[in-house]
């Protein structure tokens, strides 16, 4: 039966191929587009998940229109951001909070001997690694003792360590940051380093993989709250008590319940909006919503392209039926029932649509593969996108093949035989 259908289609190779092309493009574009979309949203979601679905990140930001604000006029020091008092208030009044991780982030340079590198000093508490999922590669992370005694110890990111210490073991060496020397006690690797997304700190500037971690207490005694940044001919000072506070909640429900109280709490004590919230779970939900819309749009485009392909098939099959009216008459005279004729033409349509579908699947899987090979876009070909695209192509064959096939079968055998 299928063999017979192929034989009839081979009678007009070019025409059959061109007819299939509509389905091939339709199926291919559905799978490829969904794969690229899936890849992009997967990357975004992974990045958001790294921030921790149970966390809320509060960051200090320089308020807009700063020069007119009171803090800046008093001196040349920009005074803004979250305070230690804010952190205490949050701890005291926000329900469902399990831990609060304060952080100071200072951009500076780190030196070892003659080698120096720009870096970001992250002054924080020992459980930083827990909350951010940072991995200890060598030695240890900061301890409560380090913090309590304001020890001059530091932990380096592995990448920074290998730049500073190309030839020797960095452990127990002393590096210089600002005016002070710090003993290296461990090396870590940030979870987010592979995709270079700012994850736990600054929005721009320092790459994530050149951090130097010191105890919060040590930073307070070394720097105070005011840091000075010297640029080429410029001089900038800012007073920020905490650059970032990561709030860890029991669960995502607690996160959602806490957003509104957090807002009202902070807005009560901050005249200017000098802080911002990052709520990963909300970002994640938003990413999922975006993805749903994206899939819906893609689905619509795909449906339209397959519809067009289907109409193309129907058009050709109607022409074929007219062209082969006589053949239909002959077959009817030789004993073919109506349903035999329906089957024959339906099989031909299905060979076109399923054949096109199969080729489309091959291209649809191949194109994302090439995209991933020759660009840094990530693609994910999902099983269901292949299944749906292929299923629709088969359905298109049946839906658009049935009418021409029935028309063929309902021809009067004598009229059909007389047809020239």
């Amino acid at each position, binding site marked *: 039966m299928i063999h017979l259908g192929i*034989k*009839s289609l*081979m*009678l007009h190779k070019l025409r059959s191929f061109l007819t299939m092309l509509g389905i091939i493009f339709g199926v291919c574009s559905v799978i490829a587009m969904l794969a690229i979309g899936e890849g992009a949203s997967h990357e975004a979601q992974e990045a958001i998940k790294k921030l921790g679905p149970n966390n809320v990140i509060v960051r200090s930001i320089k308020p807009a229109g700063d020069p007119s604000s009171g803090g800046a006029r008093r001196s040349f020091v920009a005074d803004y951001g979250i305070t230690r008092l804010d952190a205490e208030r949050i701890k005291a009044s926000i329900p469902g909070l399990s831990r609060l991780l304060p952080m100071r982030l200072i951009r500076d340079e780190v030196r070892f001997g003659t080698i120096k590198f720009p870096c970001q000093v992250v002054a924080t508490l020992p459980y930083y690694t827990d909350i951010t999922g940072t991995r200890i590669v060598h030695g240890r992370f900061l301890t409560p003792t380090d913090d309590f005694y304001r020890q001059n110890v530091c932990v380096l990111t592995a990448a920074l360590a290998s730049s500073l210490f190309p030839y020797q073991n960095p452990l127990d060496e002393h590096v210089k940051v600002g005016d002070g020397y710090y003993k290296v006690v461990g090396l870590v690797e940030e979870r987010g380093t592979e995709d270079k997304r700012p994850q736990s700190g600054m929005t721009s500037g320092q790459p994530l993989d050149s951090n130097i971690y010191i105890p919060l207490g040590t930073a307070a005694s070394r720097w105070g709250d005011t840091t000075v940044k010297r640029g080429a001919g410029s001089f900038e000072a800012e007073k920020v008590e905490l650059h970032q506070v990561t709030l860890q909640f029991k669960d995502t429900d607690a996160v959602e319940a806490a957003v509104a109280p957090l807002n009202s709490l902070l807005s009560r004590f901050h005249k200017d909006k000098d802080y911002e919230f990052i709520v990963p779970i909300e970002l994640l939900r938003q990413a999922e919503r975006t993805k749903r819309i994206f899939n819906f749009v893609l689905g619509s485009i795909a449906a339209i392209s397959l519809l067009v392909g289907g109409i193309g098939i129907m058009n050709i099959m109607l022409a074929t039926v007219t062209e082969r009216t*006589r*053949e239909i*008459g*002959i*077959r*009817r*005279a*030789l*004993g*073919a*029932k*109506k*349903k*035999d004729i329906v089957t024959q033409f339906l099989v031909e349509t299905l060979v076109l649509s399923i054949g096109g579908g199969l080729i489309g699947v091959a291209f649809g899987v191949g194109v994302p593969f090439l995209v991933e090979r020759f660009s840094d876009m990530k693609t994910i070909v999902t099983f269901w996108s292949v299944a749906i695209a292929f299923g629709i192509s088969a359905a298109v064959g049946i839906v658009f093949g049935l009418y021409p096939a029935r028309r063929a079968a309902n021809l009067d*055998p*004598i009229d059909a*035989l007389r047809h020239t």
Partner: protein
Amino acid sequence: MSGKAIVRIKGITKIYDLGEVKVKALAGVDLEIQPGSYVAIMGASGSGKSTMLNILGCLDRPTQGQYFLGGLDVAHMPDDELSNARGKQIGFVFQSYNLIEQLTVIENIHIPLFYQGKSLEDHYDHCLKLAHLVGLGDRIEHRPKQLSGGQQQRVAIARSLANEPLMILADEPTGNLDSHTGQEILDLFDRLNAKGTTIIMVTHGEETASRAQRVIRMHDGKIASDTINPGRSSIAAN
């Protein structure tokens, strides 16, 4: 005699309703055909020969009247059963051969079997034997386009025999052929009839009709004369 007739027709009419005019293609025909006979149907163009043959071949239903084909009441059969009757009981040979161009000779011969659910693999020998019977045993893989008109008509004849039907219906089978090739086809019919195949053939040529046992002449949808051909055996011997 009438008990074993393969065709029994009583008072058949066929009226084509064309809106304003009604064309009476058959105006009351009675006919019986015995197995093994060779019948020629003659008559002027428009006299109803093809209509008659179409009804005999179960391609068309009469407007009125009865038709029994090998004991089956064909006049009131549903479409699927008519298809079955055509496939099993009747072999068609057309003026314009009517082979299917995308199929090979042997596949064309196999079509009637295909619609009886018989595969070519299982009935290859049978089909091959038929190809040999019509002298095309060495052409079974050819396509119709690669054959001459006479050869195509032989394939059509082989095809008409595939299901071992009660009778072969041939509507001007030599109409598209030159006289020499036409004679060869008629010789083939003679041989088939000699082996017992029932043949009903529409023809224009008196000489062609003279090969038949029985000649039916039609006029305005009626049988004008129905005669037994006396000189038939002598021509068949040629």
